[in-house]
């Protein structure tokens, strides 16, 4: 199992994904390189979450290929794909309500695919001090913000090379949002690559190295934050803001 450490983490080519008869992704190609932060924007229903699910094998594409570290993983089960060093923070947060906060974190713990153990319980709790006060709470006895921190913390426990955040700040109070963004910044600085889906364009532009806008299942824009900030008509056209 040779890993091409310097090649892209994910290389997706011409993905076509369907839900039943509805054609959602119309040929999306995408490369995610180690250490880079990529934002994924687009209105609701344009295929952002479907794209993430296709990359992870949760909703396998009907056509196209997904390579992870150069290995063809198209159609592989999601657990095989994420074991290559990818952590997914889903839109619905995905806390296990019947486990405590500690158990939610510990169950995910594993060294990264290259054996790295940068993130353990202590470091996650240092990053999210609120969780440290809630260790014996059950997963469903947390506020929305705490649940979100728990999901991000759980993702970090897997020592990923790439963190995928789907609407991580949706529905959270402004102060909590700020806290999450500051953690995302720390994660970026620690060298973990990230794909972020969010509605907060300002925060995304500050963080992302590269931005992708999706409309009707296709990539309609790809460019740096400076470029996108300098051309507000692009995001006004596709995002309405």
């Amino acid at each position: 199992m040779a890993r091409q450490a310097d090649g892209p983490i994910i290389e997706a080519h011409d993905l076509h994904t369907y839900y039943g008869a509805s054609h959602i992704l119309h040929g999306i190609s995408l490369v995610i390189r180690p250490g880079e932060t990529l934002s994924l924007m687009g209105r609701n229903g344009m295929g952002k979450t479907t794209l993430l699910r296709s990359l992870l094998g949760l909703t396998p594409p009907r056509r196209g290929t997904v390579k992870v570290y150069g290995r063809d993983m198209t159609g592989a089960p999601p657990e095989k794909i994420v074991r290559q060093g990818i952590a997914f923070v889903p839109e619905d947060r995905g806390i296990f309500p019947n486990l405590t906060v500690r158990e939610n974190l510990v169950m995910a713990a594993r060294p990264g695919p290259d054996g790295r153990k940068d993130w353990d319980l202590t470091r996650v709790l240092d990053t999210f001090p609120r969780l440290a006060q809630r260790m014996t709470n059950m997963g469903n006895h947390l506020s929305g913000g705490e649940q979100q921190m728990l999901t991000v913390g759980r993702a970090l426990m897997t020592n990923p090379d790439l963190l995928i955040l789907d609407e991580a700040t949706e529905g959270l109070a402004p102060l909590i949002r700020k806290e999450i963004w500051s953690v995302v910044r720390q994660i970026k600085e620690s060298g973990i690559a990230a794909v972020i889906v969010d509605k907060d364009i300002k925060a995304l532009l500050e963080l992302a190295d590269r931005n992708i806008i999706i409309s009707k299942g296709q990539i309609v824009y790809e460019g740096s934050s400076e470029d996108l900030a300098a051309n507000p008509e692009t995001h006004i056209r596709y995002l309405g803001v």
Partner: protein
Amino acid sequence: MSSLTRSLPLVVALLTLLLFPLFGSSFYVGLVTRIIIIAIFAMSLDLLIGYTGLVSFGHAAFFGIGGYALAIAFQDASVIPLWQALPLSLLAAGLAALVIGWISIRTSGIYFIMITLALSQMFFYYFFESPRYGGDDGIFLFLKPVLMIGSEDILNLDNENNFYYFALSSLVLTYLFLVMILQAPFGKVIKAIKANEHRVRALGYSTNGYKLVSFVLAGTLAGLAGFLEGAHTGYINPAYMSWHESGVAIAIVILGGVGTLYGPIVGAFIIVLLQNFLPELTEHWQLLLGGIVISVVLFLPRGATSLFPRLLSLIRTEKGVPLSQEESTKVDTDG
């Protein structure tokens, strides 16, 4: 609540069970032995229903196989060495669980229920129609397993009290074993699978492997219960593995409290005692039993064992003592 006060009811219950043979007549010692055996059986099923989220409707197959392995191998033997008979029963039940589990865990929900039911009925009809193994008459065993140290049988299971303590130790060991694996990382993963299997896969766990291990462990423990039942009654027949038995086991787990290890013990006491004493009241006792099961499901959806913390919190709120955070969490989430 500290862990001491939480485990206090368990310690009291264990002490009561330990002292019971000193007071109970041999009929009642035999009855409680049967309850203990059924409790082990139901507890093994709760590992699947309450912790892994797999509702198996064929669990009696492994109970029956545990008993049949003992009866078939030793029906004509002049002595039944425990150290041969018990591993044989566990192995047979575990292997059957491996095969049935390997096929069944690929399905979920209603399909899992139907496929476990169908596969266990295959075992039922095999033994029902096999003249070699006694058909529907079953097999009699005239001896009890022995554990020889030198020329002395240190168990002497012919004595009803000794058998009682043998079954009780098996129950305690099963309980401790399950507590141990549920606290291990394995236990956290299966609990997470119960909550949401897709998420667990998205975290990088191959969930089928975990479900299969859980299924095999549960089947093996059911085999232990079947071994004890066969050895206790000296008689094993196909009814042990019929779907009625699987259904009763599910009723016990639900009645006692799904997802708690002590729930199935309480459930086994309730069901077996009702099965024994209701028939004295009326010949339509099954109707009463069904009514009781339905009322518990309606009024105590977390099982009979949830009555205790409920009463406790009721008394406290009347006294005006607010619940501590931890206790209110416990009441809400233990089911």
